[in-house]
């Protein structure tokens, strides 16, 4: 397939691996931000092709994994109402809240529907005027334009029965939080290609300068990731801390201006709690006040949902790249995709699930 098979090519992979080997002189730890990249790395065993001097650690860029427990509980509370059709992307449905997940709500009779686009949820609202239709708007900057578009479309259609439960998170504040932590051992980042497709990479330049780290905007196919690693190692070995763009076939420096315009119209920056990590200032989007009629948190009386997550698994450390899933005593034993203790074991993009599916023999 054009633009796909070239990026999964055996010869290119071998060549890149050889080049990476040749230029790597020191020990380096690189974090890929995005869960999609983590998934690719494990799915194609890219780590097997790299010299032992390079450690890949996995970042917090799995939207399912970092959506806070309270938000899942709010979703469950809304979805359980008989006057609601609750819509969501597929992989949010299995994430455990403090007691249930959305699939269990569905099994108990709740009208929970999987959609492929927030605009599908708007269509459901049009078709069901007697029901309140709520879309679970999670994700990084990548999904924000489409979710914003859904709100704008609903307003243009004059819909009074559509709202979103908004839990958007942002990448640069997460990098800032990781780097300002006293125990950061990260030497370089692979930034998330799709986030940068929307946002561009201007906002990464001050981070790179402040923390003296190279940041390489990277795609998702195995060759993309190997190229991203090559560029990052090259910068590290030559002592350069700049932002480079491996994913230039998609990402422009300024991003997608139209998409950013939608985001700026509908959302504003807010503090956001990240599951397993904690509160990160100015790390999320919320709906602007002028769109509050589409804000599910304002429409439904959700009371105070405040749940503390007990310290059982090491999801927080995994999400910050402090540990890899194989270091968790519960991995593959008490904690499996059927019985996940933490969200990274639920989502296909979660680091724990990726290790479980592609690497578990290394535990045994």
């Amino acid at each position: 397939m054009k633009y796909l098979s070239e990026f999964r090519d055996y010869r290119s992979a071998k060549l890149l691996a050889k080049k990476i080997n040749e230029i790597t002189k020191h020990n380096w730890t690189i974090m890929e931000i995005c869960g999609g990249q983590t998934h690719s790395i494990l799915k194609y065993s890219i780590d097997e092709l790299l010299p032992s001097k390079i450690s890949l650690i996995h970042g917090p860029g799995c939207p399912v994994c970092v959506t806070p427990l309270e938000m899942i509980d709010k979703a469950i509370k809304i979805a359980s109402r008989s006057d609601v059709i609750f819509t969501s992307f597929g992989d949010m449905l299995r994430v455990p809240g403090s007691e249930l997940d959305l699939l269990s709500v569905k099994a108990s009779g709740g009208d929970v529907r999987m959609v492929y686009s927030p605009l599908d949820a708007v269509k459901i609202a049009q078709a069901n005027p007697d029901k309140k239709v709520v879309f679970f708007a999670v994700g990084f900057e990548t999904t924000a334009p489409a979710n914003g578009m859904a709100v704008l479309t609903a307003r243009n259609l004059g819909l009074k029965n559509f709202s979103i439960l908004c839990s958007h998170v942002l990448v640069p504040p997460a990098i800032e939080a990781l780097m300002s932590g006293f125990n950061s051992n990260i030497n370089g980042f692979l930034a998330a290609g799709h986030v940068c497709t929307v946002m561009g990479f201007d906002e990464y330049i001050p981070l790179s300068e402040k923390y003296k780290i190279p940041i390489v905007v990277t795609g998702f196919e195995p060759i993309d990731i190997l190229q991203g690693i090559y560029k990052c190692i090259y910068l590290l070995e030559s002592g350069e801390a700049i932002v480079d763009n491996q994913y230039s076939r998609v990402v422009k420096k300024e991003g997608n201006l139209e998409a950013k315009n939608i985001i700026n119209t509908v959302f504003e920056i807010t503090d956001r709690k990240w599951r397993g990590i904690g509160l990160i200032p100015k790390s999320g989007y919320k709906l602007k006040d002028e769109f509050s009629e589409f804000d599910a948190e304002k429409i439904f009386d959700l009371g105070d949902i405040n749940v503390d997550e007990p310290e059982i698994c090491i999801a927080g450390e995994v999400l910050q790249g402090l540990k890899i899933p194989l270091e968790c005593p519960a991995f593959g034993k008490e904690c499996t995709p059927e019985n996940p203790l933490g969200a990274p074991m639920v989502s296909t993009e979660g680091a724990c699930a990726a290790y479980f599916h592609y690497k578990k023999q290394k535990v045994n």
Partner: protein
Amino acid sequence: MDFQLSCPIPKSEYDKILIAHGGGGTLTHQLITKIFLNQFGNEYLNQLHDGAILEINKTRFAFTTDSYVVNPIFFSGGNIGELAVNGTINDLVCCGAKPLFISTGFIIEEGFEIEDLWKIVLSMKAAADKANVMIVTGDTKVVEKGKGDKIFINTSGIGIVYDGLNISPQNVKVGDVIILNGRIAEHGIAIMSEREGLEFETKIQSDTAALNSLVDEILKVTKNISVMRDPTRGGIASALNEIASSANVKIEIYEEEIPISEDVLGACEILGLDPLYIANEGKILLFVQESDAEKVLNVMRNHPLGKESKIIGKVLDKGSPLVTMKTLIGSTRIVDMISGEQLPRIC
């Protein structure tokens, strides 16, 4: 910054049936072992084969049953009726049997269009005739509106096991090659695109087909087949994992050799689905002695249902069941049993 290292509360067993319990993955497996085998277990059922092989008066019969609840009932490339006939034929074929007789049970929702029923029945008749099997008994139940979803069909089937053929995972040998008769994931993607209203440039069609004539041809050139399996729900990954587990062998497959159409691959990329786990309805995996592989491939490639047949893998080792895949970039990864339904991811 104040970091709280915490995690979600544990979630263990489900106390209600979820859709994933029917997905063909780990939850289905748990349901079968913990509930059904727990009570029904016997020497036939315990083999967890596509059907049971029963010996009556020195004749070996294969007996199988399957229920069809597909939504939508009419889809690109077929409908629920021919799926029900072909599916049961294929289960018998995978027991190494020549399919002979089929039963049909209809559960129909009040208000269902007679015209739609007629269309379904016509295609069942055509599918049965084409495969040379007879529909010999049946049952009809009608449920109140809202108590079913249009129509559900159960089919059971009986066939006679071919002489000299002994199909069982226990017979899988190190060195057996794994042959697949064509492109994967077409049925699942056809259904999904129809159900979700997804449109692609070309229409992806279900591959529903009865495999008995293909297997007839194969059996003319070899009896050295240890296992045949139609990789339906759960796709080729689940089928291979089941075989690896019951045969206690290590299997390696080659990503580059697995036939898949560009349209299906594109759809999977868009939706974030792994085609290895997506349903097929006209595909068969054959574990064949390596020395017979060439002649098997020859007859398969001369049959309309096997034109793109390929060797997609090999049995590497006895002990510790595992399926691995040589990836396109030359590395090796595990192909796991899926835990539930594949859910399209967020981004």
